[in-house]
């Protein structure tokens, strides 16, 4: 009894608050409420800010409340049916259990260790039309309408509620770890907006305009794809069931045939005596067949009903996380501005005033997007047969392996992402090895589900062992770490610095160390030891580069070892961007000065290795 007294006290106080706030526009409030709008929408269209503290108690609205507020009994003709929804907001403001569905999503997809989340909400544009028409119907100014997003913030998407449910702070959409796109699926949206979209200015389109037919077709496609996924599962079940049924039917058919044959034989043998009995048998068999068919039909009907029920449950589940809510064609402010310039009579020809009631068919759509992770590292390549990236010639793949695939597969599996992008500072040819310090790269993992701040030493060892195993000891990785987005530009621009090479060179004439060093010193008197080059684009690259002259520098040439009279091993430190193979062989005389010019006879490069990338 005591609790009931408290409740009635609370209700009276809430009622009194509402009655006070409605007073300035009581009649218009009543007409809107009788038409079929929900309580909050009536507040919205009239232009009064609703008292949020007193509202959530009004779930069970009975006729006594109606009498107390308005002082009259409700007109029975204008009561709303259970299937219809609010005319103005299409039951958006009545969504419940949002936290449950969010937690369900996070569990279903498998997100872990999330730092923050963010929301972005898109509203079907037919709501703006309906608000406008209702306010004109009641002869109020449509500029006084309170937009629906403000009210959604306080009722459905309350910050404190969501933060306590997900246990993580809410942040802006672009900076959040897990960002959620929320929309609503209103199937009659394009129909209602089709006539007014012709009046909107095409310069403010947010995405490409599609005709009504294509939109229907695309919606049907999306539904097909959804249903295909469901149907595939069901087809597997159906196939097994069909096989079982076929086997049973075949068995029964065989049995029936055998019985028929037996019956026919018996007829032939005993025509006169047992005709009636055979006919009875046939009739019995027919009856059995009919019964079987009826039973099969019943079973099929039951199965279909069960499947439909499962479909509905699964569709609601599939709206969580599988569909991307469509972007609007036009922004809400653009629609409002054009609707201002249209009078009531003109609007009345385009769309019905007041708007028509609709079934409660809108579903909420949630689509998650997770922030990408950037990983820094250095890779080494110990073979002369593996390209950097997968190589395609005229649509066909050449070779089976690539450095990018070895490195990216293991790391995406660690964070369970969908796919990744690989960027390195510079590249090398197929027949050139990468040793020493290694070449820096950045891997961008898209759609990760497990978030971490550090890669521990044990995990690094595991990754390195797995990569070595997969590539048979030819590709490794070093110095892994997690990094910000700003490091991506730095690694790409780092090509202009110095690089170190080691190569094996063959000369036609006998190689003399002293003569070589003397000539080098003559050429580099004025420039303090660096050789200045002028290179035209080499012939092997001319089909995809401009024809220009490039000025490059070589900082150091060292002779490591002389194997033979003709074979020499050389160390080079050059500026980034020099073509080393063309420096040594001369490239038909288009690089000056070249190694062969300094030595005095033809020279060719036999092997090349990259030692350091700075």
């Amino acid at each position, binding site marked *: 009894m005591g609790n009931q007294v408290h409740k009635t006290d609370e209700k009276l106080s809430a009622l009194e608050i509402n009655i006070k706030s409605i007073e300035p526009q009581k009649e218009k409030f009543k007409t809107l409420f009788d038409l079929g709008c929900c309580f909050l929408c009536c507040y919205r269209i009239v232009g009064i800010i609703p008292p949020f503290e007193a509202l959530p108690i009004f779930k069970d609205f009975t006729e006594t409340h109606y009498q107390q507020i308005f002082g009259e009994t409700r007109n029975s003709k204008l009561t709303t049916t259970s299937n219809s929804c609010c005319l103005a907001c299409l039951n958006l403001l009545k969504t419940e259990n949002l936290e449950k569905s969010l937690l369900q999503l996070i569990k279903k997809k498998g997100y872990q260790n999330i730092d923050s989340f963010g929301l972005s909400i898109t509203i079907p544009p037919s709501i703006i039309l309906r608000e406008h028409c209702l306010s004109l119907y009641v002869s109020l100014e449509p500029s006084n309408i309170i937009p629906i997003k403000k009210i959604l913030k306080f009722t459905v998407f309350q910050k404190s509620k969501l933060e306590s449910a997900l246990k993580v702070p809410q942040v802006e959409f672009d900076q959040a770890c897990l960002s959620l796109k929320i929309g609503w699926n209103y199937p009659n949206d394009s129909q209602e907006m089709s006539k007014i979209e012709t009046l909107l200015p095409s310069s403010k389109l947010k995405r490409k305009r599609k005709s009504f037919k294509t939109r229907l077709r695309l919606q049907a496609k999306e539904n097909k794809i959804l249903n295909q996924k469901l149907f595939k599962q069901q087809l597997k079940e159906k196939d097994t069931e069909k096989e079982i049924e076929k086997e049973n039917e075949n068995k029964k058919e065989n049995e029936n045939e055998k019985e028929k044959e037996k019956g026919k034989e018996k007829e032939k043998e005993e025509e006169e005596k047992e005709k009636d009995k055979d006919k009875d048998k046939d009739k019995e068999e027919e009856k059995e067949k009919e019964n079987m068919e009826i039973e099969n039909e019943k079973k099929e009907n039951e199965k279909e009903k069960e499947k439909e029920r499962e479909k509905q449950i699964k569709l609601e589940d599939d709206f969580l996380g599988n569909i991307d809510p469509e972007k609007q064609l036009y922004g809400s402010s653009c629609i409002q501005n054009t609707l201002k310039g249209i009078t009531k009579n003109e609007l009345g020809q385009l769309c019905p005033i007041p708007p028509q009631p609709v079934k409660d068919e809108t579903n909420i759509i949630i689509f998650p997007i997770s922030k990408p992770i950037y990983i820094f590292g250095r890779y080494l390549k110990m073979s002369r047969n593996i390209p950097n990236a997968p190589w395609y010639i005229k649509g066909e793949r050449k070779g089976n392996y690539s450095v990018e695939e070895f490195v990216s597969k293991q790391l995406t599996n660690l964070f369970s992402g969908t796919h990744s992008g690989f960027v390195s500072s510079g590249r090398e040819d197929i027949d050139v090895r990468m040793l020493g310090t290694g070449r820096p790269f950045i891997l961008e993992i898209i759609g990760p589900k497990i978030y971490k701040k550090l890669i521990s030493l044990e995990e690094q060892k595991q990754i390195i062992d797995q990569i070595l195993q997969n590539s048979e000891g030819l590709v490794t990785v070093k110095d892994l770490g997690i990094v910000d987005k700003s490091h991506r530009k730095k690694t790409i621009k780092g090509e202009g610095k110095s690089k170190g090479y080691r190569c094996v060179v*063959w000369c036609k004439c006998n190689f003399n160390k002293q003569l070589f060093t003397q000539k080098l010193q003559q050429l580099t008197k004025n420039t303090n030891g660096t050789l200045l080059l002028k290179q035209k684009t080499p012939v*092997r690259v*001319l*089909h*995809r580069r*401009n024809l220009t002259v490039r000025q490059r520098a070589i900082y150091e040439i060292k002779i490591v070892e002389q194997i033979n009279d003709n074979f020499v091993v050389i160390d080079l430190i050059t500026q980034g961007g020099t073509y080393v193979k063309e420096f040594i*062989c001369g490239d*038909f*005389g288009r690089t000056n000065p070249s190694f062969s010019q300094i030595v005095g006879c033809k020279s*060719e490069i036999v092997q090349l290795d990259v030692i350091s990338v700075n």
Partner: protein
Amino acid sequence: MEPKSTAERIYKKEIYDQQYVLIHPNNIALIGITEEHPIIKENLEINSISFEIDGINRLNNNVKGIKKKGGRFFQVGDTICELNCSNQKTYKIISPIKGKLIEINELIIDKHHLIKEDNYDTGFISIVQKNIENTTKRRRKNNKNKNQTKN
């Protein structure tokens, strides 16, 4: 044991009547003269080279961009240049393939002896981008013309 030079390893050699064409797999070709040309056989000296033929100077060939726009187009049999030799004969150098002229060797303009001495390496004459045959664009054009003539 000598390793092969890059010209022998990668480029394909085709000989057209005392001239050679070295083609790279990316369809860029070098043109020059072989050892059976009378300049090398009879050991003649080259006095001058003239690049101006029919009023157009081949040295004014400016090429822009990756697609090499602005290059002069050669059909089979067009002359590239003329060599004036010491025995008062002029030898024409013909382009044996269809293609677009990219560049003429700058070392030849001053040092004429390179054509004789180093005819495969630094004594080449010009670089030409070869036309690709049987691309999808050409197939569609040819089919269009065929259908029009039929109709």
